[in-house]
């Protein structure tokens, strides 16, 4: 038997020991490869995701690589620690340290190569399925499977170098241990107090401070707070796990009436040691899960935004221009001919909107004519407006404003023309998107509108009104390339300091396609990263458990002799595992919850969107996964310690 054969047989005949490490590597490769397949897709260069995505996809890929490297490194460390007894025997039999390093290196390369090959094979066979999902999400015509050497080479090179580097690093950076220490197996637990009261309190203060800031956030303080809060929370979480938690448990243990009662002693004492030894892991898991929660939550938010987009933007195209806009005819005819060329049906409404001063508010008010509005309402299929002389009606600027305006009743005079108007109604639905109309817009009867002969008192310094052209287009998703040149001018002008163009143009279909592509990008990146994060967070705990299994078995052996029933073993295992699984998750859930309360508030200000339902769904889904994972591991654990 040569040395290489020894390494090979070691792996092949101990599949069960290597399985956990293999699965960790395999899954990393699998996710990475599928993602690379998408990144190198030939049609992605044609820009099916819009213009931005390529660079973002590369960044996401890099994050994925860094994370999986870390993940493999950690698995490797736990794996080697669990096998230290075996290494002790080999060294005892006279193996050189150099040979042992070579053995570990060879084994890692064998497992690594197999997991790369299997990962790529599985990845390639699942790629078509993945592409189908992507195609559905992005509403693409087709996203065919392709064969190209780039994703294969990239995955192979990235992971082979990862395995080479990690195996070398974990061998050379491992602390030098004596044979006798290795023979004793995984190192014994250390018990010394590591917390300080001051840091324990600091942890709580930082976290509570972060939460309070998150609750107090407003649009004005948004930027400075969003920089500050993550820093507070990160440090707070670190101190929470390294000091606060231990401080609390230690205080609890001082009370014998609590600590010694009802078989609480053993689980509590165990938790002290688990919390102390895993504080860094718990911190990492918490932060990682928080990131995963946030990315999933963000996805849910965006999906709710896209689903509500239609409602918030009822019009396909909007063209708004000054009364003396010289381009009006040219632009209108070009838009209309483009629409007709594409064979899209539309309903065009032309508005003349006049500005007047209201005696009630002393500010300007935008006045719409009843028959203009009715023309648009007719094409929407909404109920018409009937106004008699002297009556007015508010136009809502957002969904929320409908409620607010309906309670208002205003008697005002349009000052320039001395026309009294009583406004005590509001149109119950959103007619225009909020960006088009001002907050103070009313509809008056045609008779009153005709009497508005004197222009707005601000004229000629300010525009006395504007022309508004609205296109109600049933197939508004297909109008992405209508009026592109006008849109281009408008976008250019927006970047300048002052908006000087006499017209403004909005293409809801085009905007939607931008939002959709950003959203789908986030979906792809977010889902993949969240999948890897969730898996990794669970695996961290699993590896820790695996390493300590031997000493756990010894402990349960003593307890069994002393007389502990099966039911009590299960209970003990549950209380042993529960905090490890759910404490980091609980903390990260609390973090995310506050993050989303903040987000909800900000979004309500900007886009008037509620994300509660989506978030509850997303979180419930993640919790269900974790609970399943918990029971799976508990089941394995009970089986292991019982015999």
């Amino acid at each position, binding site marked *: 038997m040569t040395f290489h054969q020894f390494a090979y047989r070691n792996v092949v005949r101990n599949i069960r020991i290597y399985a956990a490490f293999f699965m960790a590597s395999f899954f990393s490769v699998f996710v990475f490869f599928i993602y690379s397949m998408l990144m190198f897709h030939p049609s992605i260069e044609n820009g099916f995701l819009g213009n931005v995505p390529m660079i973002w996809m590369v960044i996401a890929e890099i994050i994925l690589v860094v994370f999986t490297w870390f993940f493999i490194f950690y698995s490797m460390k736990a794996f080697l620690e669990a096998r230290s007894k075996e290494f002790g025997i080999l060294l005892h039999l006279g193996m050189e340290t150099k040979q042992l390093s070579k053995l570990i290196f060879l084994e890692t390369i064998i497992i690594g190569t197999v997991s790369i090959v299997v990962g790529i094979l599985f990845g390639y066979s699942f790629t078509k399925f993945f592409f189908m999902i992507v195609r559905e999400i992005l509403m693409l015509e087709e996203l065919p499977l392709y064969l190209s050497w780039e994703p294969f080479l990239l995955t192979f090179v990235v992971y082979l170098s990862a395995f080479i580097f990690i195996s070398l690093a974990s061998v050379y950076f491992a602390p030098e241990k004596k044979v006798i220490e290795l023979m004793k197996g995984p190192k*014994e*637990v250390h*018990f010394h107090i590591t917390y300080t009261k001051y840091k324990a309190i600091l942890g709580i203060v930082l976290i509570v401070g972060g939460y309070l800031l998150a609750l107090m956030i407003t649009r004005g303080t948004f930027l400075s707070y969003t920089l500050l809060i993550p820093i507070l929370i990160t440090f707070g979480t670190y101190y929470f796990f390294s000091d606060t938690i231990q401080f609390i448990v230690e205080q609890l243990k001082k009370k*014998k*009436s609590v600590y*010694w*009662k*009802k*078989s*609480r*002693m*053993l689980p509590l*004492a*165990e938790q*002290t*040691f688990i919390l102390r030894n895993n504080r860094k892991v718990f911190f990492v898991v918490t932060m990682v899960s928080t990131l995963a929660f946030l990315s999933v939550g963000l996805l849910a938010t965006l999906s709710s935004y896209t689903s509500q987009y239609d409602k918030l933007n009822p019009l396909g195209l909007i063209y708004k221009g000054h009364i003396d806009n010289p381009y009006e005819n040219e632009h209108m005819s070009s838009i209309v001919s483009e629409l007709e060329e594409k064979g899209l049906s539309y309903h065009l409404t032309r508005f003349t909107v006049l500005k007047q001063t209201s005696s009630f508010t002393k500010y300007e008010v935008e006045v719409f004519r009843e028959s203009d509005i009715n023309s648009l309402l007719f094409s929407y299929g909404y109920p018409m407006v009937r106004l008699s002389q002297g009556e007015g009606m508010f136009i809502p600027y957002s969904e929320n404003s409908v409620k607010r305006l309906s309670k208002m009743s205003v008697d005002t005079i349009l000052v320039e023309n001395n026309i009294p108007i009583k406004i005590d109604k509001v149109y119950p639905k959103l007619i225009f998107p909020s960006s088009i109309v001002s907050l103070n817009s009313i509809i008056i009867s045609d008779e009153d509108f005709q009497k508005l002969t004197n222009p707005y008192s601000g004229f000629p310094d300010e525009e006395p009104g504007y022309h508004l052209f609205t296109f109600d287009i049933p197939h508004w998703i297909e109008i992405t390339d209508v009026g592109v040149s006008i849109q281009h001018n408008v976008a250019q002008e927006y970047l300048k300091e002052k908006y000087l163009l006499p017209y403004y143009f909005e293409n809801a279909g085009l905007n939607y396609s931008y939002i959709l592509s950003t959203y789908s990008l986030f979906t792809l990146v977010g889902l993949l990263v969240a999948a890897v994060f969730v898996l990794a967070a669970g695996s961290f705990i699993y590896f820790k458990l695996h390493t300590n299994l031997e000493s756990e078995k*010894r*402990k349960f*052996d*003593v*307890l*069994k*002799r*002393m*007389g*502990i*029933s*099966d*039911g*009590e073993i299960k209970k003990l295992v549950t209380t042993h595992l529960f905090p490890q699984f759910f404490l980091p998750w609980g903390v990260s859930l609390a973090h995310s919850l506050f993050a989303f309360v903040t987000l909800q508030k900000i979004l309500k200000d900007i886009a008037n969107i509620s994300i509660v339902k989506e978030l509850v769904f997303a979180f419930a889904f993640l919790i269900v996964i974790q609970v399943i994972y918990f029971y799976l591991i508990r089941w394995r654990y009970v089986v292991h310690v019982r015999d």
Partner: protein
Amino acid sequence: MPILQVRDITKVYEGKVTNRAINQLSFDVQKGEFIAIMGPSGSGKTTLLNLISTIDKPTSGEIIFNYIKPQNLNKTDLAFFRRRQLGFVFQDFNLLPMLTVEENIILPLTLDQQPVEVMEERLKRLAQKLNLTSILYKRPNEISGGQAQRVAIARALIHEPAIILADEPTGNLDSNNSREVLELLSKINQERQATIVMVTHDPIAASFCDRVLFIKDGEYFNEINRDDRRQTFFQRILNVLSLLGGGQVGDLSSIRLP
């Protein structure tokens, strides 16, 4: 009425190689007796202790504790039986590293969900008696082997079990600590009338007992009772061990001479 009756027990381990560890073994233990079970390696001592501990079941025969037959109990009742009737002392102490000395001692009582006052009261008495008061708040890795075994004995006594089972309690101790632990066991035996069954292959340890039972290849071999002087008792134990060693005269078993 003996407190423990072992009736014709046989234990066969089945597997690829069938192994008969205990064969038709019978003996009684009286209340308040301190009995040693001796035999060479592989004679089935540990198997016997596991059977008495009820964590293993005999293939045939029965073990009776004070009219209770553990074989007839279900798993949960068996656990309750062990935690109330049996106390254990192990060769490698088996103190739980995450608990302090005092917590290790009261562990059997917390498993049984006794009230805290009972625990404190018994702990106080026992700690004084076994001279553990000064180390109560230390961790198992901060005390010496002799102290650790004393703690383990305290743990075996705190719930006042009917029988204490000791598996090579001096196996990991030096001669001074060994003597201390053995003297402690015999003192407990005399003062509290505690019944102790000790498995050992150290003739010195055995010489502290009232009676020594020898087994060989899982079968009853011989037994001797203590006389007035420990020195002669020790000599007689050595004589039996030399007989135990095998066919050839003078082929001593692996015993440790003082």
